[in-house]
């Protein structure tokens, strides 16, 4: 059994805005084992990015981490000061942002942006760092690395920029890679290339990865385990197969049914009524209850469901999960 690399317990990150306190992440717990890929799935506003930003403590103002623990190799990152965090960011934990067009500095060449990261964490000369950068470019399969490295970001296409961002995140061989919607800004054929690259690199380098996405299709092919978030809380956490074939939380099931399937032409899509709740005044009790077809007054509207292990390694936060019909929407189709 691989040991836990990252353990998040009851993380709370709130944003103090003029309109009120936005409870973006409100008691999220998750674990990532060494060498494992965790898919963090949720819609916009579910708190997936804020969770990732909290791990590195780069939550933008007016956000604040209020409580919880983030254990990385057994050490609580939330107790570390800024200087210690600087040694972790980029070296121990790499980060790939969603939009490569805005996460790269437009006024520096790619070479200088890579060399900066490498020299910050490793004691090497400029020339050695440059040689390493070229190696990294070969690793992420960029053609003519010796030439391309002297380009500015605007001279590269979206897919190439994302490869460059991956190269930068991998430059110090992190143990954990946080990939925040790495393919959302890209076209499907390029998305396939990047996902394949990430999968291969993960195997080659043996690192763990948290893949953040809203696309169930993306995680199905890449992740070992999946944690589903809704409105700042964890709904369900299980192996990828369990999430798809044996989803126990009503939200997970609804999400699977609402996605138009390529394989099957359905007359009408299952609809999740309503919209994502406002996180300044989130619904009481289970946050999904206003949109849930199984919600029951009292149990669901008042009590916050805790994350329970209903089946081995299958955690669900739903008061009624035990009573519900357990068929997977995917199984029904076949």
């Amino acid at each position, binding site marked *: 059994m691989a040991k836990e690399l990252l353990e998040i317990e009851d993380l709370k990150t709130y944003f103090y805005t003029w309109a009120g306190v936005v409870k973006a992440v409100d008691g999220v717990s998750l674990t990532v084992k060494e060498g494992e890929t965790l898919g963090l799935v949720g*819609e*916009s506003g579910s708190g997936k990015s804020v969770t990732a930003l909290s791990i590195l403590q780069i939550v933008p103002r007016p956000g604040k981490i209020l409580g919880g623990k983030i254990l990385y190799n057994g050490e609580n990152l939330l107790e570390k000061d800024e200087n210690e965090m600087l040694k972790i960011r980029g070296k121990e934990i790499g980060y790939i942002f969603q939009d490569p067009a805005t996460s790269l500095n437009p006024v520096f060449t790619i070479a200088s942006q890579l060399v900066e990261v490498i020299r910050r964490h490793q004691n090497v000369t400029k020339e050695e760092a440059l040689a390493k950068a070229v190696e990294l470019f070969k690793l992420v399969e960029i053609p003519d690395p010796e030439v391309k490295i002297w380009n500015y970001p605007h001279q590269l*296409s979206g*897919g*190439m920029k994302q490869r460059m961002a991956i190269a930068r995140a991998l430059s110090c061989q992190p143990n954990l890679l946080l990939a925040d919607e790495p393919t959302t800004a890209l*076209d*499907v*054929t*390029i*998305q*396939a*290339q990047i*996902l*394949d690259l990430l999968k291969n690199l993960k195997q080659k380098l043996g690192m763990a990865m948290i893949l953040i996405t*809203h*696309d*169930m*299709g*993306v995680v*199905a*092919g890449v992740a070992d385990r999946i944690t589903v978030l809704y409105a700042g809380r964890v709904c369900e956490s299980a192996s*990828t*197969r369990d999430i*798809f*074939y044996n989803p126990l939380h009503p939200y997970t099931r*609804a*999400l*699977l049914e*609402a*996605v*138009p*399937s*390529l*394989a099957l*032409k*359905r007359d*009408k*899509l*299952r*609809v*999740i*009524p309503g*919209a*994502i709740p406002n996180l300044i005044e989130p619904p009481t009790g289970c946050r999904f209850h206003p949109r849930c077809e199984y919600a029951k007054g009292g149990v669901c509207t008042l009590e916050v469901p805790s994350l329970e292990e209903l089946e081995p390694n299958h955690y669900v936060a739903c008061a009624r999960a035990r009573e519900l019909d357990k068929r997977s929407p*995917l199984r029904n189709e076949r």
Partner: protein
Amino acid sequence: MMSTTPVLEVRNLVKHFPITSRGVLFSKEVGVVHAVDGVSFSVNKGETFGLVGESGCGKTTTARSIMYLDAPTSGEILFEGTEISSVFKSKDKEAILHLRQKIQYVFQNPYASLDPRMTVADIIMEPLVIHGHIPKDKWHDRLYELLQLVGLEEYHAERYPHEFSGGQRQRICIARALAVEPDLLIADEPVASLDVSVRAQILNLMRELQQKFKITYLYISHDLSTVRHICHRVAVMYLGKFVEIAETDDLFERPLHPYTQALLSSIPIPDPDAKTKRIMLPGEVPSPINPPLGCRFEPRCIFNKNHVCVHDAPGLVDVGGGHFVACGGLPRR
């Protein structure tokens, strides 16, 4: 059964954007972006025609040319038998207004396409004011009818766009487009900016409205799974040209063009056990400023290419059953 009178017919549509560089006295043209390069198709009444392709392939430019938001460089666009460019060039205000009434547009981003300073009532009634096709005392009735139609409540009328979620905003956009009873609705990525759980609501709404009013849709998207769900026929576009047109089921079950095959195979399927042979396309889409001489897909094509592919642009060939493919290597396979 659908009738087969074409509502919209596009013949050899070309749209080029000049690239100019400022000289001493005059600016001079230094190049041309070949956004759309000879596209032909027709859309039947009551049908949903899908336009699919990756970013920069010319889907939106095609739609904007049909609306005459960008005047086409050449080619003919016939709407219910009338040539659109000639109407717009004639400056005949009444005829132009009539066309604008019959063709409506739903934009991709409902956050940018609604005026933040207008209430929902003003937004939805503005087309009624402009077109004046129903008497003034009926406007409010029509407003409430439209709100109900798209699944909003009467009290929403006095609110402003910022008070709504993305899905509700897109409902407002649809209500605004439907206000003047159009025959053709161009929907440019209407669900791309919405959350997954809300997309289904809008797609279902579009289908219901089509069944009720027999509207014809031109549905533009890069997301093949929504296309499969909503379209009757689909055209796949690559770098300004159509590579394949077919009935939706036919296209998804029997894709013939190598680009369509690659596109279909690269969609991630939400099923961990799904076994797909992913066709990896090498490289990236070439620049539309200097498109390849022959087949536009030739530099990335993984099939046996012959000299024809390099030099000759293949035209769309009927392979039976309303399935058209533009591939030079096709007869050899």
